[in-house]
């Protein structure tokens, strides 16, 4: 039963990461990130105590709240800007398919080399890391960059939770997650018309 739920979590993570990559609407992207953190919570609790897994879930949702509240107060002009990078959804889907295939193929080999992690955990971790790197590679939008970094870190956290259970590490990773979202918000706000008006006032 646990195995089935773990594989379901892998599928949820794949869908959420793909949604993050192909959807331009920031609300849907943040929703996908929220679902992603839920699936991540399941994987983490297979290696860490429930309390530590919950802390990571709460941190993840706090991150989403910070980014969401910031984005809510900004105009849509930023997202409408044309980017030099490829925009096509098909292109992004193809990239995600490559990442998914590579992750499913590599996970059993990594499990053989480093036993104990669990194939579903490794697969999810690799999908998230790959998805995050793609997001960082094809986007210049600051919100997208923040989402890419958070996705990448989430993948790393799933894998690292299986090998390291120190409270200090969990705490520092929570600080890094919240810090990244605060920085994302700061970068979005810096120099924006809202900020300039406030400074003038």
């Amino acid at each position, binding site marked *: 039963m646990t195995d089935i739920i773990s594989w379901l979590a892998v599928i949820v993570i794949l869908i959420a990461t793909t949604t993050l990559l192909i959807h331009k609407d920031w609300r849907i992207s943040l929703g996908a990130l929220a679902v992603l953190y839920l699936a991540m919570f399941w994987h983490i609790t297979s290696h860490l105590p429930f309390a530590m897994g919950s802390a990571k879930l709460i941190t993840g949702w706090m991150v989403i709240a910070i980014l969401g509240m910031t984005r809510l107060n900004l105009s849509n002009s930023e997202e409408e800007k044309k980017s030099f990078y490829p925009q096509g959804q098909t292109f992004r889907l193809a990239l995600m398919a490559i990442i998914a295939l590579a992750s499913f193929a590599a996970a059993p080999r990594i499990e053989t*080399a480093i036993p104990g992690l669990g194939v579903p955990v490794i697969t999810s971790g690799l999908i998230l*890391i790959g998805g995050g790197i793609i997001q*960082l590679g094809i986007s*210049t939008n*600051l919100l997208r*960059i923040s989402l*890419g*970094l958070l996705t*990448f*870190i989430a993948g*790393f956290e799933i*894998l*690292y939770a299986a*090998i*390291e259970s*120190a*409270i*200090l*590490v969990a*705490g*520092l*990773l929570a*600080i*890094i997650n919240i*810090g*990244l979202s605060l*920085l994302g918000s*700061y*970068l*979005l*706000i*810096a*120099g*924006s018309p809202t*900020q*300039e008006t406030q*400074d003038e006032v």
Partner: protein
Amino acid sequence: MSSPILWIALPFTVGTFILLFINEKYATWIGGTLCALLSLTAFFIPIDTALLLGTLSIKIAPAVQFFGRSFELNTADGALLTIIYGVATLWFFGAQVSGTATRFVSLGLMIISLLTASLAVEPFLYAALLLEVAAMLVIPLLLPTTQKANQGVARFLIYQTLAMPFILFSGWLLAGVEASPTNIGSTTLSGTMLSIGFAFLFSVFPFYNWIPSLMEENSPYASGFLLWALPTFTTIFALGFLDRYTWLRTSPQLINALQFTGVFMVASGGIFASLQKHIGRIFAYATIAETGLILLAFSIQNIDIVILTISILLVRGIELPTWALALSILKQNSNSLKFSDLQGFFRKFPIATISLIIVHLSMLGFPLLAGFPTRLAIWQLMANISPTLLIWLFMGAMGLLIAAVRTLAVFVMTDEESNWKLNEGWVQITMLGLGVSGLFILGLLPQALNPLLKHLPALFERLSQ
């Protein structure tokens, strides 16, 4: 009192206090004085040794427990703390006259304390996490709220964040390699992950593209601080890895990779610097070339590796604040740092322009200046390995020399009728004078560093054997 509280918690708390309550005018004095006191304390009071002052006995305990992990700063760390907080003093006293972002001192203090924590944390691998937190604090320092975020800042954040997982995973794998060194698979994997992690941290080619854009678009003083602080602590972190893992420091593949990367960075940094028309970008490429030099110092199979590497860092700690301050003064008084906007500045800002040229010459290894002795040592050691490497190193130095000559030509390019003026303030002149004097003193008397450097081998015992 314990050393982590004194050199980590205290500056962090003072930084937070300054951020919330103190006027920036007083902030530079508080921050600078605190760092000077911490530097002097580290130099004069040995950690973990009882000191009798009349009937009073003072002892700084070396460790403190935090969330089940230990933060330790031992007797051997004293010299390093002296250097770090000594250089930080220069940065903070210079901040007021550089006209930089108002949060420089407060955030700077927090960054320094977090980076010091990265030296102290046990297991030392967790330093990667602290380096990332410190890197995140740099962003508000670089970017005032009124300035739009640019690509340089975004790339910096991405690369620093990507580094952390690679370092943490490689550290975990390295523990396995130590247990079974014959396992070639995990040795290769851990070595590769470690190299990728440090390539991001050191901004090795091609990951250094954010440095020139950062210097072009942001405050030169804050960017200069970043280019001093993070590479310095990353270097010490990397020395820790080399010290701990014997197979790593004796691996011929790693040594070759370090030599190739180092030479490539020195040569490319120098050549690109010679092609720039923006003195901020020239500064960026000069720092890239110097990072290459640090990588070359790592590749040296010699007991002097620690002293040589820390000497480069120490000299860099004088060069970068002076150069960044000179750039800030020029930027405050011109539209930009482009050559076209700086023509004739030699007559308007003689001290700033002369200081800038002297620091530039020091960073390329000009004789009689502080950068020369360390570069000479590296050139000699590289010549023994391969003359080809030496040719590329000279090409890098020549590139930087061309950049210096071009900058000088722009500064003196003016009509005969322009009058000489001393537009720098007395604090600016004092700070620049201190920096330039330091470069001459260390160039003429490199042995002046001996009192600081003699204790450093104890910090990396296995590397120094």
